[in-house]
C-alpha cells in the first residue's frame, strides 16, 4: 500500500472514530488561548447554543459559576503543562438551566512540546448528579434522624437470633454496660426477672411474625438497679418476608413508674385509712346510739317516779298538807318535767348529727302554712297578724326543714306573747342568687351583745319563768342549717322584736350578714 493509500486509510479510520465519538460524547476543541475552535452536535444540543454562537468564544460562555476559581485554575495549569485533566463540571446552558458533564481534556502538543490545542470530551451526567444529590440529601436526612433519635431514645438492634448487634450511647448509659459487653449478647443480660414467661413469649411471637410490639418493660442494669422502659420493637423483614433484624426504641419511664407506684401506694393507704376511719365512725355512732338509748330510757324512769309519786302524795294526802307543802310538791313536779324536756331536746339535738340528709325540693310556702296551723293558727285567744311573703321552694331534708321553721315560728309566737298586737313577718330576700329566709316578730327581742350565745345548747337569754324553754331550739336550728351548708343569724333589739335569717346552701359571695 502506498503512503498515500496508507494516509487515506488512516484518515478514514480517524473519520470513523470521530463519527463514533460524536455519536457518544460531547466534544469540543479549544485553542491555547482557550477559544473554542470546534464543537460537535451533542455540545450544541446540551448547551443549547448554535455552533456559530460558540465558535471563537471561550468556555466562560457556559460557566455556571458553580466552581471556585481555584478549581478552574488547577484545570488550566494541568492542561497547560500538557497533562490530561479529568473531572466533573457543572455548566450553564443558554436558557439558564444547568447540566453536569464528566469531562476529559486532552492537550495535544506541538513539536516544541507545548500544547497546540485541547480536545475536551464530555459525557452528560446531569441525571446521575441529580440522583446522587437526592441520595446525599436523603442520607443526610437519615443521619439527622438517627442523630436526633440517638439524642432522644434508647436504641438497640437485634438479629433474628436475638443477639444484640447495635446499641446507642443512651442504651449503654441506662444499662450501665459498655458497648463491648452488650454486642453479641441477647437481652437476657438486662432481664429483671419481673415479667412472666408468657409476657416475654408474647413479645417474641409478635415480632417473629413481623408485627410491631409495644409495651413497658422492667430491666436490670449492670449494677443491679432496675429501670423501666417504654418499648417499641419494629421487625425489619428480609427478602423471604422473615425478620432480618429488630430495631428496639425505648424511652426511660422509671420516674413515671415510680410516681405511679407511689400514687398506687398512697391510694391504697388512703383507702385503708378511709375504711378505718369509717369503721371508727360507725363504731362511735353505734356507741352513741346505745348511749342515747340508755339516757332516753333510764333517765326518764326516775323522773317519772319523782313526778308520779309527788302527784300521788298530792292526790292522796293533799288535804292534810299546808299550802306551802303542796307548792313544794308542785315545784318538784315542775322540775322533774323540765328535766324530762331537757333530756328529750338534748337527745333530739344529738340525733341530728347522726341522721343522714334526705334532700329534695321542699315547698317552703306550703310547709310554713302547715306549721302555722300546727302552732294554733289563727290563735282565737290572741291578736296576731301574720304577713307571709313569696317563699320559693328550696332543696333540703323535709323533716329537718320542718324542724327549723317550727322552732323559729314557735319562738316568734312565744316571744311576742306579751304584745297586745303581735306581728309576724315571714319572707325571703334574694342576693347574688342566694335565697335568705327570715322570720320577724315584734316581741321582746334581745340584747345584741349576747347574740353569740343565741345558738349554743342550753343557752337562754330569758328567764324560764318569763318564757319557758330548754335553750335547745335554736341550737337545733343552727345544726340543721349548717348540715345543709347554710348560715343562720339574728338581729334584734330589746323590746323591739327580733329577726332570724337563714340560708340553705353555700352563698355566692361570703360576707357580713346583710339583711
Amino acid at each position: 500500500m502506498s503512503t498515500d493509500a496508507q494516509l487515506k486509510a488512516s484518515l478514514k479510520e480517524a473519520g470513523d472514530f470521530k463519527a463514533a465519538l460524536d455519536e457518544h460524547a460531547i466534544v469540543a476543541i479549544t485553542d491555547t488561548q482557550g477559544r473554542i475552535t470546534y464543537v460537535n452536535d451533542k455540545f450544541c444540543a446540551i448547551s443549547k447554543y448554535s455552533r456559530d454562537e460558540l465558535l471563537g468564544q471561550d468556555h466562560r460562555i457556559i460557566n455556571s459559576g458553580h466552581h471556585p476559581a481555584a478549581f478552574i485554575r488547577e484545570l488550566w495549569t494541568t492542561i497547560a503543562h500538557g497533562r490530561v485533566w479529568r473531572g466533573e463540571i457543572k455548566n450553564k446552558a443558554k436558557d439558564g438551566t444547568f447540566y453536569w458533564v464528566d469531562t476529559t481534556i486532552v492537550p495535544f502538543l506541538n513539536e516544541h512540546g507545548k500544547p497546540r490545542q485541547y480536545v475536551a470530551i464530555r459525557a452528560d451526567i446531569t441525571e446521575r448528579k441529580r440522583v446522587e444529590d437526592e441520595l446525599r440529601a436523603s442520607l443526610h436526612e437519615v443521619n439527622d434522624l438517627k442523630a436526633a433519635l440517638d439524642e432522644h431514645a434508647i436504641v438497640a438492634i437485634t438479629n433474628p437470633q436475638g443477639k444484640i448487634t447495635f446499641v446507642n450511647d443512651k442504651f449503654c448509659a441506662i444499662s450501665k454496660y459498655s458497648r463491648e459487653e452488650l454486642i453479641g449478647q441477647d437481652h437476657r443480660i438486662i432481664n429483671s426477672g419481673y415479667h412472666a414467661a408468657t409476657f416475654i413469649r408474647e413479645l417474641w411471637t409478635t415480632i417473629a411474625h413481623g408485627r410491631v410490639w409495644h409495651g413497658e418493660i422492667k430491666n436490670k442494669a449492670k449494677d443491679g438497679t432496675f429501670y423501666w422502659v417504654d418499648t417499641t420493637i419494629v421487625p425489619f423483614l428480609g427478602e423471604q418476608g422473615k425478620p432480618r433484624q429488630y430495631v428496639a426504641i425505648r424511652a426511660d419511664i422509671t420516674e413515671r413508674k415510680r410516681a405511679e407506684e407511689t400514687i398506687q401506694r398512697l391510694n391504697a393507704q388512703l383507702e385503708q385509712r378511709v375504711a378505718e376511719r369509717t369503721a371508727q365512725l360507725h363504731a362511735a355512732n353505734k356507741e352513741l346510739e346505745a348511749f342515747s338509748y340508755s339516757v332516753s330510757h333510764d333517765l326518764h324512769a326516775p323522773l317519772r317516779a319523782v313526778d308520779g309519786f309527788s302527784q300521788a302524795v298530792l292526790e292522796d294526802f293533799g288535804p292534810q298538807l299546808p299550802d306551802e307543802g303542796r307548792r313544794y310538791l308542785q315545784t318538784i313536779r315542775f322540775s322533774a318535767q323540765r328535766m324530762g324536756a331537757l333530756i328529750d331536746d338534748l337527745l333530739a339535738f344529738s340525733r341530728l348529727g347522726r341522721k343522714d340528709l334526705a334532700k329534695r325540693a321542699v315547698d317552703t310556702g306550703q310547709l310554713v302554712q302547715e306549721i302555722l296551723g300546727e302552732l294554733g293558727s289563727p290563735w282565737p285567744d290572741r291578736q296576731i297578724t301574720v304577713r307571709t311573703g313569696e317563699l320559693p321552694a328550696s332543696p333540703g331534708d323535709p323533716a329537718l326543714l320542718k324542724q327549723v321553721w317550727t322552732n323559729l315560728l314557735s319562738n316568734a309566737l312565744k316571744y311576742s306573747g306579751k304584745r297586745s298586737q303581735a306581728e309576724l313577718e315571714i319572707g325571703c330576700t334574694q342576693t347574688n342568687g342566694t335565697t335568705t329566709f327570715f322570720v320577724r316578730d315584734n316581741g321582746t327581742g334581745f340584747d345584741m351583745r349576747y347574740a353569740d350565745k343565741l345558738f349554743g345548747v342550753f343557752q337562754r337569754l330569758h328567764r324560764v319563768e318569763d318564757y319557758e324553754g330548754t335553750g335547745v331550739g335554736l341550737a337545733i336550728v343552727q345544726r340543721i342549717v349548717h348540715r345543709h351548708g347554710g348560715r343562720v343569724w339574728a338581729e334584734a333589739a330589746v323590746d323591739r322584736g327580733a329577726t332570724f335569717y337563714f340560708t340553705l346552701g353555700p352563698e355566692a359571695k361570703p360576707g357580713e350578714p346583710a339583711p
Partner: protein
Amino acid sequence: MNDPAAIELLLVEDNPQDLELALRALRKANLANHIQVARDGAEALEFIFCEGSHAARQISDRPKVILLDLKLPKVDGIEVLKRIKGDPRTSMIPVVVLTSSKEQNDVVESYRLGVNSYIVKPVNFEQFAAAVRELGLYWLLLNQPPQVTG
C-alpha cells in the same frame, strides 16, 4: 272467756316505780281487776306460753291486752313481741308497747313486728295516767277481740 277470774291484762314492767304508777293509774280508772304482772321478758313468755310456773294455765285463756315495756331484763321486749306475734296461738292478742324509748328504730321495729299500739311514757304523771287509762279502756272495754279457737 267468761270466767270472771280470767286474766284480762298482762303488764310487763321491770321498773317498780313505773309498775306502781301504772297499777295506780289502772286502779283509778277502775281497770285494775284481773291483772297479771311480769317483771321481765322471760316471765312474760312463761305466762303467755304456759310454761314453768304457769304450766297449769291454758294457752287459749288469752289476756285481752298485753302492756309491754321494751327494755327488760333477761329477754327484751322486742323479742317477747316477736314470739307473741310469730305464734298463731298468740298472734291475735293485742300488744301495746309502753316504753320510755322514743328511738325511731324501736318504733319502726315494733310496728314491723305487728304491735297494735306504741305509747311513749311521758314524765308528766297526769299524761301517763291518761295514756294508761285510755289504752286500758280501749283494749279492755271497747275492743272486741276476734273469736279464735285453739
